[in-house]
């Protein structure tokens, strides 16, 4: 199949970027989007041109590494899919695609389609954990957690840290990401003792990093590849007000 690609090219964080156009007419509809870019890069390298920088690793939707914007859709035009889980069968022969990096102040563009998402790690570093050292743990079945509670905690813990929630948000808010971790840990009895400290520190760090506020447009939930619910944001806000 044939696709016309307009791809954002930017040599580094300070450079001015622009779209460049590439036409590929030997594509297979079973290819994933990163495989399409591999194919394009092979051609560019042989033409002695700079290949397109894009992040990609596990290619099965779990590492959270890949991700850019395709025709205005964050990660994918498919529902709840990562970029690597998007195949060319999602498009029609002859389609025109615009590929561009996530746009958010807290995610500076490193090169082409790659952005720096370290801000998310810094939020976790402020308290997104249970402070237990190796060796301290009690017997696992000594902590009973009802099936439903464990499942709810899992729903939140499933976050892959891809940053799509930030990229899709008109305010570039990291509320879904941050709340997923706060919820995951506060829903478990082991996570409760540190809940107050954790919530305040993580929310403060989220603001410090330059992420915007949440205005409940629900766009994040709609794109989240793990379908994480915005009810976690409600829970984060409640935990925050309880804590301050």
């Amino acid at each position, binding site marked *: 199949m044939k696709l016309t690609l307009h791809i954002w090219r930017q040599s580094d964080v300070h450079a001015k970027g622009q779209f460049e156009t590439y036409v590929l007419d030997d594509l297979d509809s079973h290819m994933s989007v990163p495989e399409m870019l591999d194919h394009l890069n092979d051609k560019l390298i042989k033409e002695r041109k700079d290949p397109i920088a894009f992040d990609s690793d596990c290619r099965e939707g779990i590492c959270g590494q890949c991700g850019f914007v395709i025709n205005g859709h964050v990660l994918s035009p498919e529902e709840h899919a990562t970029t690597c889980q998007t195949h060319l069968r999602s498009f029609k022969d002859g389609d025109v695609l615009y590929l561009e990096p996530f746009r958010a102040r807290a995610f500076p563009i490193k090169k082409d389609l790659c952005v720096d998402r370290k801000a998310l790690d810094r939020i976790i570093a402020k308290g997104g954990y*249970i402070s237990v050292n190796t060796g301290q743990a009690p017997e696992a079945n000594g902590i009973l957690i*009802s099936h439903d509670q464990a499942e709810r905690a899992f729903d939140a813990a499933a976050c892959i840290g891809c940053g799509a929630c930030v990229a899709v948000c008109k305010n570039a808010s990291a509320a879904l990401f941050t709340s997923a971790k706060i919820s*995951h840990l506060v829903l478990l009895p082991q996570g409760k003792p540190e809940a107050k400290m954790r919530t305040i520190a993580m929310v403060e760090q989220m603001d410090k990093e330059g992420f915007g506020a949440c205005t409940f447009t629900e766009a994040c939930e709609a794109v989240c590849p793990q379908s994480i619910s915005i009810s976690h944001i409600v829970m984060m806000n409640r935990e925050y007000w309880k804590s301050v």
Partner: protein
Amino acid sequence: MLNSKIPPGPIQEKWTQYKAGCKLINPSNRRKYKVIVVGTGLAGSSVSSSLSELGFQVEVFTFHESPRRAHSVAAQGGINAAKDYKNDGDSIWRMFYDTVKGGDFRSREANVYRMAECSLGLIDQAVAQGVPFAREYSGYLSNRSFGGVQVSRTFYARGQTGQQLLQGAYQALIRQSEVGLLTIHTRHEMLNLILEEGKAKGIVSRNLDTGQIKSHMADAVILATGGYGKIYYLSTLAMNCNATAIWRAHKKGAFFAAPSWTQFHPTSLPQMGEYQSKLTLMSESLRNDGRIWVPKKPKKNRSPREIPEEERDYYLERKYPSFGNLAPRDISSRAAKEQIDAGHGIGPLRNAVYLDFEDAIKRDGKDVIVKKYGNLFDMYKKITGMDAYSEPMMISPSAHFSMGGLWVDYELMSNLEGLFVLGEANFADHGANRLGANSLLQACVDGYFIAPHTVMNYLAGEKQIENLTTPNAEKSIKETKLRLTRLLSIQGNTTAEEFHKALGKVLYTKCGLSRKRSELLEAKKELKALQESFYKDLVVSGSSDVINFELEKAGRVEDYLELSQLIVEDSLQREESCGAHFRVEHQTEEGEAKRNDEDFKYVSVWESTLEGEYLLHKEMLEFVSIKISERSYK
């Protein structure tokens, strides 16, 4: 020459005795020692946080942009522990026996027993960290069964167990970067090992964002850099998984054990076309309820639901009635290959077999199946566009796990003093075939419970390193820069990716699921030729002082080309079949692997000389606690 340092005494006492006798360092002195850890998967993150909690300085390196991206994240099905919560006859001993047998009696007894022993505490540790394992309605932990065993000892978090365990380890790691003496260097790739008087004392890294090459010195170096199954190009591994760290350590003298023992996972998605970059894994847990079959008489264009029961061959249930669809991975993969080679394969390229849930859905209802495997079925749909509730999945074997790796002793230290190797990067616990749900376990146990003791024991006898740099460090930097310049200067017409694909094809066809002497000899020649053409015809764009994914890839493929030749050598040398290593010359009349205990009851441990020759060392395996027997799952 190879001293595996197995402690004396009965197997149940060895680890306790070791810990009782190992040297300690006063808490206030620990901060004077620095340890480098390369890799932030389960093994790397867990050892880093544990050492930092003890008070050591830790410098952590990962080529990922965040520690959380490491490939442990992709493990699906579960983690084993001999908790015996099911009262189904499990015990540390049983788990030890299952693992040694599963590895076809080619692993080190003492290590395996210790892994089973430490499995109990690991589940406790993970739960305390907040890992949301599956629970019964009562609130107690739930278990399921995995291949090669008859008990249910696998703990799981839906189909994302690796992700959840890694979250726990990542959070412990990142917590230490706030409260401990721990620094994380993301987007740094280890490109060389620095030795001082034969001991590992540092690494050379390249900052992948700026291109800066730098040396880092420390009192010990820990490699936890994962497996190298990606050498086959098409594999279940992530695109960036590589052997570079362990291979460069090998070139500095660290011995490589059993390089050719790579596990092919029986339930991955089949290749659909030439453009394909990876094969996605579907968790082995699916084999708890799915039935594997092929049509007895292949007729084209028949949908599986049109094929009547009597025309289906449930070949695993037929050949291995007592384990059925849960036969171990090596056996299941080979059985699938046998069916495909005999023309019974299904799918557009006739390279797959069916994994069918029709009976399970009839028996338990769709709701139960959704609850158990929902996310795996969703993933299947996202990738293939097909609905596995209404038609069977198509699966096929794919390169997956490296049982081989750098040789380590009981303390997880390589033959180079001060160089520790953890997790999939080492050779130790899995023998010639790994049992499902034992890899997460080994990575965690190595990192949380074993290395913290053995590393401290080593450091207690070491004088702290004083210099920030040394002549050897300078030399290693120079070597590293030269390699990069060489790769950039070739300016040919073939990309690193194309070389990698060609390499993968040679290995898949001639040194994959089954191996034949004549084909291995061909592979040897072909790989040599491929390597020569790599240095003549490689093209890498850009320069070394900016972000350059092509340069990263080229370095990894360069190492893979070298490692692949050792893999073939190892495969040729071992004139027997065991576990994942199946030499067609050595099989029983029924076509099962035929082990040769008389001549090969050892691990092949390789040294590469500067002249490019391979020297074989042998670690003889002694089975004192278990009686070595024929491995049967019939």
